C-alpha cells in the first residue's frame, strides 16, 4: 500500500497508487484505500447521513429507512476495514438505523400517532444538526478581526508614574513592626497603643484650631453624639496638646468660657 498525501497548501494533493489527485471525484465512489480520506471530511455519522439524504434526494420528513440504512452501512463497512477507531461513532449510528428500520417493520397499532414514528428522534437530530452546520458556515463567513478586519493599534509613549502607589493594611503593619523593632534599639519615644486615639484626637483638634484660630473649649466636644469614652479621650488629647505646648488654654476670669488656640509664641 502506498499512499502519500501532502497538504502544505490548501486544496488537495493526494497520491494514491502513484496517481495524483488534485480534486475530489464528483461522486463518492472512492478507491478503497482512500475511502477514509473522504470519510474524514464528514463531521460524524449525522453529517454522513445528511449527505446521503441530500445526495439521493430523500425526504427528511419521510425517510425511506431501508434505503438510507443500506447506503449508510455500505460506507461504514468499507470504512471499517481500514479504520476501526474512526468507525466507532459510525457503528453506533448503524445500530440505531437498523433498530429504527426493524421497528418500522413491526405491525403497528391501527391508530398511529405521528409522534410514535420510530424515525422522529433521528429526524429531530438531523434537523438540529443541519441547522448548526449551516449556521457554522455563516459564522465562518463573518468578517474576523485579524483576517478581514484590521483594528487601530497606533503607538503612544506610555508613562508610568500616573498610577497611585498602593498600600495595604499589611504593608503598614509590617512597616510599623519594623519601626518598633528598631525603636527598641534606638528610640527614646514611648510607643503605646493606648495613646493612639488620644493622638488621633490631637491631630483633629489641631486641624480645627488651624481652621478657626480660636475655639471655645466646649465646642471641641460633641456632647450629644460622642460617648463618654470618646469625650474623655478628647479631653486627654487637649491636656496632652497643652502639655506639649502645642495649644494655649486661656480663660479671662473664673466661670467664663475657656478658649483654646494654637500656641504661636
Amino acid at each position: 500500500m502506498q499512499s502519500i498525501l501532502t497538504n502544505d497548501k490548501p486544496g488537495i494533493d493526494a497520491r494514491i497508487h502513484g496517481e495524483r489527485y488534485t480534486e475530489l471525484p464528483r461522486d463518492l465512489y472512492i478507491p478503497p484505500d482512500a475511502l477514509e480520506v473522504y470519510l474524514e471530511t464528514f463531521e460524524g455519522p449525522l453529517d454522513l447521513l445528511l449527505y446521503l439524504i441530500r445526495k439521493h434526494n430523500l425526504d427528511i420528513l419521510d425517510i425511506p429507512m431501508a434505503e438510507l440504512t443500506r447506503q449508510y452501512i455500505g460506507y461504514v463497512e468499507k470504512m471499517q476495514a481500514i479504520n476501526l477507531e474512526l468507525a466507532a461513532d459510525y457503528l453506533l449510528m448503524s445500530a440505531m438505523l437498523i433498530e429504527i428500520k426493524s421497528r418500522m417493520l413491526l405491525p403497528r397499532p391501527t391508530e398511529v400517532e405521528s409522534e410514535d414514528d420510530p424515525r422522529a428522534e433521528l429526524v429531530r437530530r438531523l434537523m438540529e444538526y443541519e441547522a448548526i452546520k449551516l449556521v457554522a458556515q455563516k459564522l465562518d463567513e463573518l468578517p474576523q478581526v485579524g483576517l478581514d478586519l484590521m483594528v487601530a493599534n497606533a503607538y503612544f509613549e506610555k508613562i508610568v508614574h500616573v498610577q497611585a502607589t498602593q498600600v495595604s493594611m499589611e504593608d503598614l503593619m509590617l512597616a510599623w513592626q519594623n519601626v518598633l523593632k528598631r525603636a527598641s534599639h534606638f528610640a527614646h519615644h514611648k510607643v503605646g497603643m493606648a495613646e493612639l486615639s488620644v493622638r488621633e484626637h490631637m491631630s483633629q483638634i489641631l486641624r480645627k484650631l488651624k481652621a478657626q484660630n480660636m475655639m471655645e473649649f466646649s465646642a471641641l466636644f460633641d456632647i450629644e453624639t460622642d460617648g463618654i469614652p470618646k469625650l474623655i479621650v478628647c479631653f486627654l488629647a487637649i491636656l496632652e496638646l497643652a502639655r506639649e505646648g502645642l495649644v494655649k488654654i486661656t480663660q479671662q476670669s473664673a466661670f467664663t468660657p475657656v478658649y483654646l488656640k494654637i500656641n504661636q509664641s
Partner: protein
Amino acid sequence: MELNNTTQMKMILEAALLTSPIPLSLDDMLRLFSERIERATLRMLLDELKQDWQARTPISMELVEVASGWRFQALPELTPYLSRLNPDRPHRYSRAAMETLAIIAYRQPVTRGDIEELRGVAVNPNTMRQLQERDWIDVVGQRDVPGRPSLYATTKTFLDDLNLKSLADLPAMETFIEQPFVEEKPLVEEWPEVTAHVDFLDNGASSAN
C-alpha cells in the same frame, strides 16, 4: 492642555481609540478625563467623532461599536491591501471547530456532552483548547449533574472579533429547508484536517514494507 472645549476632548478620545489595541468601554473612556463627564456627553462626543471620520473623503478608518466597547478599524475594503503586510495571518478554523463554536454560541451555556450529542461525534479536546486560548469561549459554571461538567459560553472577545455588538447580531439560525443538492464544498476546504489521518496511512505503509 486645557480641556475647555469638546474639540479637545474629541482629540483625546481619538488618540485613545487609535492607540488602543482593544475596544474601549465607556467606563474606560470616562477615566481619560480628570473632570467628571456624563455618559450621555461621552456618547455624544463619540457620535460626533464617528461622523467626523465619515465626513472625510476618502475614508480610511471607521469608528464602530462592538460588544466590549468602541474601536477604530480600517474599512473592510482596505483589508486586501493591508493584509499584504502580514502574510502569516491567523488560520481559519476547521469545520469541526466552527460547528463546535456555533453550538456554544447558539445554545450556550452547554457542556461538552451537549456538543457531542448535537454533532454525533466526540469533541476533540484540542478544539476546545484552541477556542479557549483565542478567548472566544470560557467556562461559566458547572451543570448540577453527576460529574459536574463545565458549562461553556462565548465571550465578549468572540463578539468583538466578529464585529458584533451582541449575540442577537449573530446570523439567524434557519430550520431545515429543502435545498437543492450541491456538491459539498467543505469537502475540499476541510482538506487540511486529513493530516492526522495521513500519518496513519504512512505508518501503515511503512509497517507493510
